[in-house]
Structure formats: structure tokens, C-alpha cells
């Protein structure tokens, strides 16, 4: 239960933070790539419980 709570809290914080950062980004050529990297971070966050299972 504790693990699940932490997982959800992490996803929540990361998505809120990223949606703010995405807006504040300067609109340049790099912004597309940055957005892609952000989505990779979220994916890693969602998959993070797998590392506990694999141990």
C-alpha cells in the first residue's frame, strides 16, 4: 500500500511539474525534443514499480 501511494504521488507531482515547465519553455527548435524527453520521464515513472517486482 505504501509503495502504491508513493508511486501515485510521484506520477502526480511529475505530471504537474512537467505541464508547468512545458508552458514556460522558450519556443525554439529544441522544445519538441524536450517534450519527447519529458514523456520518456513520465513513462519511466509509470514503469518504476517494475524494478521492485524484478528484484
Amino acid at each position, binding site marked *: 500500500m505504501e509503495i502504491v501511494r508513493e508511486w*501515485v504521488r510521484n*506520477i*502526480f507531482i511529475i*505530471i504537474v511539474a*512537467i505541464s508547468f515547465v512545458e508552458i514556460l519553455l522558450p519556443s525554439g527548435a529544441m522544445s519538441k525534443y524536450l517534450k519527447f524527453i519529458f*514523456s520518456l520521464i*513520465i513513462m519511466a515513472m*509509470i514503469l518504476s514499480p517494475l524494478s521492485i517486482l524484478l528484484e
Partner: protein
Amino acid sequence: MSLDLEEIIDKQLASMNLESIDQLTDLIGKDKIFSDMTPGQIIKGIINGDPLFNFNNIISNILNLFMSEIYGSIVLGVQLVIICIIIGLLKNLSTSFGDDTVSKLGTVVCSCSVMALCLKSFMEVYTICMNAVDTMSVTMQALLPVLVPLLISMGNFTSGSILNPVIVTAITIFNSALQRIVMPAVLLSSIFILVNSLSDRDYVKKLALFMRAFAIFMVGLCVTLFSGLTAIQGIVTKTADGMIAKTARYSMDNFIPIVGGFAADSIDLVLSCATIIKNGIGLFGLFIIITLLILPLIKILAIALVYKITAIIIEPIGNKTVSDCLNEMGNSVITLAVIIFLAATMFIIFLAVIIGIGGGNLWR
């Protein structure tokens, strides 16, 4: 036969310990849907053949409750609509700010406040559901110690001794499964839905929908499993009881000379009185479970209706993500309603199994 039917029933009622059941009536609280029901009244109603319900009363009570709940939660809807109008304004003003960033930031902040409002009201609904499930299982656990001895006193030894542990185990497992797994899953899925409404892209929508579907699947599985097992157990033990009861009556009738026949007949009468009492208490339990179900259900459905109507209202103003999010929140709230409805259905099936056993045709 000098003894009157009502006298026997009164004596049997007086000899029973009904305090735990009387406490249950306090649990329902002031706003009752079924006015002033006690086990004694129901039993007398059954004997005299009075109608149990007053339908006009019940329907008008339910309507009044629903309207008052709608009025109570309409503030939430108004707040949400105002915030969404501000979001729409900000979008249109974006050109006059010069930079896109300022209006987008304002939109996200407004979405955050929508999120906070929704989360607050959803937590209310969540606690209502938790309490409803809790009180329903407490009610069942208070009813069983009264009903099962009555079953045994009617000669249903096998049913009484087997069904009691089966039903108690089922209730305990079901209650903890709901509180540990199912309800938190719905809560988490609605948190994901809310956080998903912050940006235009879908980050965790599929995950949220999956968790909700999983919760519904778990409840369905539990209800099917437990009620199926109990029903089958009830049928099997009923036949065994019939054998025992018929043997007892036959031996009394034939092996005790002269008075045996009368004794067997008067036992019939006393036992059918026990049946009436058991059915009366079972019915009383049904009323309590239904009341405990209807009160939270009305609240939850009123809030779900407010969510849905708000989603419909703000759709033309032009914010798709917030509208979708409110719609999904409405679905989440309805999911909670479905869960407590299923829980109540399972408890009602348990009571029906107990009422159905020894329905009076064993001894004839």
C-alpha cells in the same frame, strides 16, 4: 390447542435478545425512508396480512432527499462553471497579452483549481462510500447471531452450523477487499483522470481507465463467487435439514404412544411461529440494508448528476480537457455507486438465503 398464535410469538420474542437489533434502528438516523419499522411491527404485519409499504410515502421521501442533495451540491457545479468561463476568457484574451505563455499559464492554474475542487468533493463521496460499506457489514454481523439460532431452533441444524461461518467469512473478506483494493483503485484512477486534465496531451488516461475497470471486475468477481457459494450451500444444507426434521417428526409421531401425534402437531405450530419471527427479523434486516444503501446512493448519484451537467454546460465554452475530465469524474462517482450497490445486493442475497431456508414446507 389453548395457546394463541400471537401469544406464542410474543413469548418467543420476549425470550430472545433483540438489543443488538434495536441498536441498528438508531444507526439509520433521522431521515428514514421506511417510517418507524421495528421487528415486532413487521412480524405482526405478516400475521395480520397488512401491506408492508406505503409506496407514495417512500417515493416522495426519496424525491425530497434527492432534491435536497442536488441543492447541496449545486454550489460545486456553479464554482466549476465560473472557473471554466474564466478559462474561456483567458483563451480569447491570449492575443491581447502579446505572449501566448501568460494565458496558457493562467489556464493551467485554473485547471489546478478545478482539480482541487473535484478532488475535495470526490473525497467526500469516497468517505460516504467507505462508511456505507462499513455500516452494512456491521449490520449483517449484528443480524447473523440473531437469525442463526432461530434457524437452528427451527430444526435446521445443518444450515445453521454451516451457513454462519460461510457468511461471516464472506462478509469479512468482501469488506476488507473493498476497503483495501477496490475503493483505493477507484480513488487512484480519479486522481489520474484529474492530473491528466492539466495538459492537452493524454499522459495517464489509459492507466486510469484500466484501474477503474479492474476495480469493477474485482467487485463483480467477489459478489459472484460469494453469493454463488452461499446459495449453493443453502440448497444443499436445506435438503439435509429436511431429512433430519422429517425423521424427528416421524419418530415422535409413531414411537410415543397416544400423545405423540398431538405433540408433533403442537411442535409444528411453535416451529412455524419461529419461522414467522425469523422471516420478520430477516425482513427488518432487508429494510435496514436497503435504507443504508439508498441514502448514500442518492447523495452519490446527485453529485454524479452535478458533474455530468457541469460537463455538458462547459462543453460549448470551449475547454475540451476540463469537460472530458468532469465527464470522467462523473463516471468515477457512478462507479462508486455501482460498487456499493453490488455490495448491498450481495448482503441482500445472504439474507434471502437465510429467509428462504425452512420456508415452512419442511414439516408439512
